[in-house]
């Protein structure tokens, strides 16, 4: 029986693998993708990048303008994530099973969060483009909505995970609902929530670039501008600036995480 069990398990793994291979092969057939040509063009792409996509001394003249846009984008990302986290905290407390006031309310809160989360940030910015036009507000609200949806979900899970026991103890002492939230739920989950917020800020800076290209604002717009005017040198400088900013922010948030835990 033992032998049979392992044989069955191996057979199942083999079937899954065969399925994946056939799906991949089917995909290649349908799209008429030339595998060999695909791989062989990678070296060409690299050599194009090396010969064209690098900053020159001329492109550094545009640096101040790039940095201003980049700074604007970073602030926008931080601002949208922090404001979203306040709203998310409120919705998460009402939405979590541990702390909800009533189950019906909790379902509504979770539904709103799911709705905001599952509409992609690019879709949000296209929708909001109609209302706010080509301005920083469009990007801000797109980031805000997605951050709100994601953080609500993350905060609900944090609350459910860490504060069950403290809540029960404080309820048993006769503490009021608000006291329970402030003295048990918030202290137990604050550090994890802050960690999620930092993660959200990093994610927002990455998506802000894409939103900028779509909505014509911020660093994304600057990149798009140089890229379309075939000034690849300056466009590459934009990319490098973004990468450095993200790395710096990640280092900073890792430091904060280490300190608070």
């Amino acid at each position: 029986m033992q032998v049979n069990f392992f044989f069955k398990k191996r057979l199942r793994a083999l079937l899954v693998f065969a399925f994946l291979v056939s799906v991949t092969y089917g995909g290649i057939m349908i799209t008429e993708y030339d595998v060999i040509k695909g791989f062989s063009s990678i070296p060409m792409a690299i050599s194009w990048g090396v010969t064209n996509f690098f900053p020159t001394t001329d492109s550094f003249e545009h640096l101040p303008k790039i940095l201003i846009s980049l700074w604007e984008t970073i602030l926008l990302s931080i601002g949208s994530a922090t404001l979203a986290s306040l709203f998310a905290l409120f919705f998460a407390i009402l939405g979590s099973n541990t702390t909800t006031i009533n189950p019906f309310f909790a379902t509504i809160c979770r539904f709103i969060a799911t709705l905001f989360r599952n509409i992609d940030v690019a879709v949000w910015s296209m929708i909001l483009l109609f209302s706010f036009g080509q301005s920083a507000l469009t990007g801000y609200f797109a980031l805000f909505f997605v951050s709100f949806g994601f953080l609500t979900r993350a905060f609900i899970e944090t609350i459910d995970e860490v504060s069950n026991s403290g809540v029960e103890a404080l309820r048993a002492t006769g503490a009021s609902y608000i006291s329970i939230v402030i003295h048990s739920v918030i202290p137990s989950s604050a550090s994890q929530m802050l960690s999620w917020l930092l993660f959200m800020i990093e994610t927002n800076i990455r998506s802000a670039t894409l939103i900028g290209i779509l909505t014509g604002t911020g660093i994304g717009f600057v990149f798009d501008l140089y890229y379309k005017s075939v000034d690849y040198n300056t466009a590459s400088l934009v990319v490098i600036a973004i990468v450095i900013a993200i790395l710096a922010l990640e280092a900073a948030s890792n430091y904060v995480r280490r300190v608070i835990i």
Partner: protein
Amino acid sequence: MALLELFNLSKRYDQHTIALSDINISVNKGEFIAVIGPSGAGKSTLLRCINRMIEPTNGEVTFDGVDLLHVKRKELRRLRTKIGMIFQHYHLVNRLTVIENVLHGRLGYKSSVVGALGIYTKKEKEQAIQLLRMLGLADQMYKRSDKLSGGQKQRVGIARALIQDPKMLLCDEPIASLDPNASKIIMDYLQKISQSLGITVIVNLHQVDVALQYSDRIIGVSQGQIVYDGTPTDITQEQIHQIYGSDFDDLMVEMNKEKHYAG
């Protein structure tokens, strides 16, 4: 007059799961009661139905002359301040200090605003310090509570319950996660509290020998019903067998082992 009376108390989760059926208990002031029974017998549910952490389906709970099941939310909060609760897994807020956790026991006495702001009087703070001294935690007062050992955490739990100035303590498996040494310390404190402060103590236990050693009265629960209610001296091996059913033989092995440790 009895401090706590349970009359025909029942709890059913759905049509088929009956956690408690027709529980009748009368508890006097200052009694030390051990509730014993196998896992899943309904010990925890019984304890939590007393202070309505779990809402009973039927029956009556009278505490200190008040019908607990028909009071409004605010009155329930007031009555809960008079019932301290101690948990198997201590249920402290880990990221806060020991003294903050103890002071949580006073939150039930405060209005929402004062409680939310965490304003404690000088007298309350002094009382917290005094309790921590009494429980041998004077050096741990300002440490984060997740830095403590299990036994120390449980003593913080006791301090949090005592600062409520309770008439009764409900202890849900207080020593189930502790080693024999720490278990003895905790049980000794509970006994001392019951005797010197006249506080009624109801303890859920799964160690029969501990129950026999410390309590004035044993309540045996099996499948949601009370099958024994009497003094520890009167209980017979047969009755213990009845409480634990077929797990009895395993239990005896465990008991002998524990005796060996204690000796």
